[in-house]
């Protein structure tokens, strides 16, 4: 305990958010779906953490649980989400999800942008109205100052002609512009953490690159940390400092970006990296795919969740116990019996 307090103290200036043993379960009629099952990670100030995994691996739910907006019937059953806020520690997991404290953090300390720029803005309110709303909610400024600030933000996210755009509706903007408007909204209160849940997935590849570039630029300017959630390893390589790989609600590997790409340890990570098409590879060669499909998340069998699909699986070990996430080399954690 003493030791732990000391590390927190030492990390005061570099750690922004610590997620410890987070468990988020969905109580469905068919049973309990363990969307996030004992996940822990830290994120430092001004760092970008990429969370990567297939659909349904719990990466979005992890993000939602940080803001305490996990949809019904999901519940954060265990764990801590510690936010370092001017020297204070706040456990977000313990706040009332509709209470005053978490609302003061949402949008102000931690902001979020989403996958679908088409639907994530209200169809019947102007862009300006929605951005100003966030500003007015968290900052003590007047209507006209908020409008000025909104215009400035729209300009900063690269929307040309902000004076016209501010009074337009989302359907009048293209997908890329909408996502830019979302980013402007998220950054309008200068948050210390931005959670980006697949922000470029629904966009054209060229627009994707522009948005990614914009986010990197804005990160330099605003100095916020980013949790970047995607299934696209190429995007992760572009933007992240660290990577967390998730599989079926578990964190299975966590390391800095170079380690993940040059020295992946978990068979799943290795498989993911092999499945990326590479320029310069001989044409018409088959991409390697991970065999099998993700098992249904209800009633998971004993042992490692990747067991059925793993090339290295050892009967009697991997299908009996669940490997825990252990540090193999400094800063490189993996959950696999191959590295004990």
């Amino acid at each position, binding site marked *: 305990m003493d030791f732990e307090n000391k590390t927190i103290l030492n990390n005061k200036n570099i750690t922004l958010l610590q997620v410890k043993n987070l468990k988020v379960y969905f109580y469905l009629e068919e049973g309990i779906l363990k969307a996030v099952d004992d996940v822990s990670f830290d994120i430092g100030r001004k760092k970008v953490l990429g969370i990567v995994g297939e659909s349904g691996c719990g990466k979005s739910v992890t993000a939602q649980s940080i803001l305490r907006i996990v949809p019904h019937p999901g519940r954060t059953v265990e764990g801590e989400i510690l936010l370092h806020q001017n020297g204070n520690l706040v456990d977000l997991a313990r706040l009332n999800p509709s209470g005053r404290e978490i609302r003061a953090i949402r949008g102000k300390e931690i*902001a979020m942008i989403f996958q679908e720029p088409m639907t994530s803005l*209200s169809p019947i309110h102007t862009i300006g109205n929605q951005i100003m*709303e966030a500003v007015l909610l968290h900052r003590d400024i007047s209507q006209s100052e908020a409008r000025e600030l909104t215009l400035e933000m729209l300009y900063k996210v690269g929307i040309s002609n902000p004076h016209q755009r501010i009074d337009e509706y989302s*359907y009048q903007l293209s997908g890329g512009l909408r996502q830019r408007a979302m980013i402007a909204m998220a950054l309008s209160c200068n948050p210390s953490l931005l959670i980006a849940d697949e922000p470029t997935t629904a966009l054209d590849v060229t627009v994707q690159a522009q948005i990614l570039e914009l986010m990197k630029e804005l990160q330099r300017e605003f100095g916020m940390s980013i949790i970047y959630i995607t299934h696209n390893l190429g995007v992760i390589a572009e933007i992240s400092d660290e990577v967390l790989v998730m599989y079926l609600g578990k964190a299975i590997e966590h390391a800095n970006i170079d380690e993940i790409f040059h020295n992946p340890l978990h068979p799943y990570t290795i498989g993911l990296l092999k499945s990326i098409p590479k320029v310069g590879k001989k044409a018409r060669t088959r991409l390697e795919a991970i065999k099998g499909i993700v098992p249904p998340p209800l009633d998971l069998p004993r042992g490692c969740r990747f067991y059925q699909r793993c090339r290295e699986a050892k009967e009697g070990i991997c299908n009996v116990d669940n490997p825990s996430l252990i540090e193999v080399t400094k800063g490189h954690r993996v959950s696999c019996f191959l590295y004990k």
Partner: protein
Amino acid sequence: MLFYVIRRLLYMIIILFLLSVVAFIIIQLPPGDYVSAYVAEMQSMRGERLAEEEIIALRKVYGVDRPMYVQYSKWLWKLSHGNFGMSLQLQRPVIDLIAERLPLTVLICILATIFTYAVGMPIGIYSAIRQYSIGDYFSTVFGFIGLAVPNFLLALILMFLFYKYFGFSIGGLFSLQYMDASWSAGKFIDMFKHLPIPVIVIGTPGAAALIRTMRGCLLDELRKQYVITARAKGLEERTLLFKYPVRVAINPIISTIGWTLPWLISGGTITSIVLGLPTTGPLLFEALLKQDMELAGSILMILSFLTVIGTFISDILLVLLDPRIRYEKSAV
């Protein structure tokens, strides 16, 4: 926008013309005409048999001997000049008959509309945000019963209950002593005692339907991403609810708000007959039975006019409220 309004007004005139043709045909559809209905009534009620010459004379007087298209054009000509004609059966100008009944009809309508929205909207919203709660199930049951029970039955039940537990008869809008009295404070109070039942009876099916519509629309909206965006911004639940999903879910309801106009007047017909209310509903019913052409036609045309106007108002409201539709219209 101005162009849109003008175009809509032109459409309205065309539609009203077509409706007048349909109304006329429907009134003429049953075999016979006013004179044959009159002759049959004379025969059955008083046992009098009219001579053939008399009947022909009557036909001439009432103008029902002329060909259909002549009757129709005469009627339309008068109508387009604001002349609603005479009631054959009551021998009084149609305009007087309607004017007598219109104020009370409108009063009941307005109160019933207020009742419909005051009950339907909050319960619908509650039902959606507390989906599958006990309150939701309760309102669902209420909604289905409200929709399924015929108006007149509800009227009879309420009349019975009021009579049994409050000890006064609730039929009509006035008690006997005020029936033919001129307006006074006493008559006014008496009327307000009688008002709740017709208002509840006429407003209930609408409220029940509105609960279902509101619940459905809002449930659709609550699942949308922009609601989560707003929540992630740090908005308080209630503010969020009314600024975003409710505001969007209300649009389809607004687009039908105008339709309640004619429905409340005609939909109240059977209720009004059961409750003995001096509204336009029973007047229309009687006129249709007797094939009283000018009276029935005029009321039908007024109802049609209200429908068209109601739809028009709804559309204009929707254009004002929903920027997406405004955008499409301005692009046209």
